[in-house]
């Protein structure tokens, strides 16, 4: 009973206070939202330990059972230990692990950033494959999509202007009128849905997060 009621009471009180503080700038109300975010950051810091524990255990299980791709777990442990040790050493030596010239930043700049860039670069190939499937003219709707996409893509590059000098204007019209209206409709729907969900949470109607 208390397992449900106490979290519901905390949610209600916190929710109401946060809503009120949105309209009252006077101290202490004006600062409460910021304070709540600070508390969230503190809680987040502790749960990060749970996250690391989960990750370490997951890879340990893979290694112990020699599951498919188990040797990737060795790379994980290597990367984890390297980041941890260089992070601690850099923090002690420079006072900030992210200081230019620290060993942590060296590995961050020379390994992590190129890896992230590589992953991001894959997006170009995935856009090509997804576009190929999406733009196949299977029916009238897909044909409209194909034609519109071709106009927009051509209108954004110089060759489109060369083909027809009004093509960039047509592209702008598609983006600013045809596309923007429905997009704003979706945005309004999301905003109202979020408010409705927040109300359900504050009033204790929505309880799925409690489990």
């Amino acid at each position, binding site marked *: 009973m208390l397992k449900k009621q106490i979290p519901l009471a905390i949610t209600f009180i916190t929710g109401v206070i946060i809503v009120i503080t949105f309209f009252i700038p006077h101290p202490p109300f004006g600062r409460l939202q910021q304070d709540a975010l600070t508390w969230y950051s503190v809680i987040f810091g502790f749960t990060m330990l749970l996250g690391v524990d989960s990750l370490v255990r997951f890879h340990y299980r893979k290694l112990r059972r020699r599951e498919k791709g188990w040797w990737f777990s060795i790379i994980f442990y290597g990367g984890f230990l390297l980041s941890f040790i260089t992070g601690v050493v850099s923090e002690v030596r420079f006072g900030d692990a992210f200081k230019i010239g620290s060993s942590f930043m060296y590995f961050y700049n020379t390994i992590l950033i190129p890896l992230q860039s590589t*992953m991001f670069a894959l997006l170009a190939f995935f856009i090509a494959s997804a576009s190929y499937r999406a733009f196949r003219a299977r029916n009238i709707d897909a044909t409209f999509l194909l034609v519109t996409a071709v106009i927009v893509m051509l209108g954004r590059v110089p060759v489109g202007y060369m083909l027809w000098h009004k093509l960039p204007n047509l592209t702008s019209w598609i983006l600013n009128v045809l596309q923007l209206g429905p997009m704003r409709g*979706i945005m309004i729907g999301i905003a109202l849905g979020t408010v409705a969900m927040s109300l359900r949470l504050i009033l204790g109607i929505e309880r799925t997060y409690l489990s």
Partner: protein
Amino acid sequence: MILFILFSTITVKAFDTPNDGGGSITIKAYNVPETVKKALVYRKTEGDTTYTFAGVMSILSYRYVDANSTIKNGKPYYYRVDFYFPDTVISVESDSPGIAYAQWYDKTKTSSLIFLIVFSTLVLVFIQLAKKDPEGLYIRKIPALDAIDEAVGRSTELGKPTFFVHGLLGITDAGTLAALTILRRVAKKVAEYDTPILVTNFDPIVMTASQETVKQAYTEAGRPDAYNEKNIIYLTYEQFGYTAGVDGLMVREKPGAIFLQGYFFAESLILAETGHSVGAIQIAGTTAKEQLPFFVAACDYVLIGEEMLAASSYIGREPVMLGSVKGADWGKAFLMGVIGIGVVLGTVGAILQSAGNGALMNVFEKILAFF
């Protein structure tokens, strides 16, 4: 003499910055000639013999907000602004001291307050109506939510695991909370069909909530023994590290069904295309409007924006929850009405203004300024 008359028209006013929590004074200059190159603000308070530099005033708005941490509420502060002309510098002192106060109500948020009251009233009224007449509520079909059973069933038939991939925002995001609702439904089905599930998390708080959600779902399905906490894993707090981790798991484990739920950024298509390449049935849901086209292109079913937020009401089918959805719909209708009135007022106002009558346009602009 002419210069003196010109400069003597400049006035500087210092006043409490409105609608704030105090500790701030606004300095505004009036009748400033366009030839001013820069304007520097100086401050002193009671007991000070000289002014100290406070900041640079914008020469576009001729306004400077002094929110220095030394500003105390209720204490008078005197200001001087030095206006730099091409050939001279003119100093103008504020006609009266500025005193900072904290306000109890932010007037700029009145429109939000009105909307909050109207919207909350509508939602509460429809919740009450739903309690009285549970049969009178209708919610349209949402194919992506209906397809959850189909996706988990297919995964079971193929003997493959089901993947649930959380988005990149934390537990404070409404989309993440909605994703947890969907996870509960998926986990319950997975428990009933005795299929493995793997839940990947970007945020450790979401991971903890996911573990509780899945545990509860397994208990509801009568299979608490089958619950394995190690199947709800945290990957990393790096965007593309998370993407690489999830993609790697997809390629190695080859899941039969993939649920991409939450708020995604540039990684949305990378995840969805990888899922498609391993032949999984994919159900995506996001409140990130920029990522919707990618999911529509690459996934089998998509929960578009508010559909995701209505998931708990749709899945639970509780009258009170459905009532809140209906209330939100009426809130939308109210907003559409306000937008419609605004469009008519603005259009007619512009037509009348071009014909020489600007009264209606003035009304429209005042309404616009209010919002």
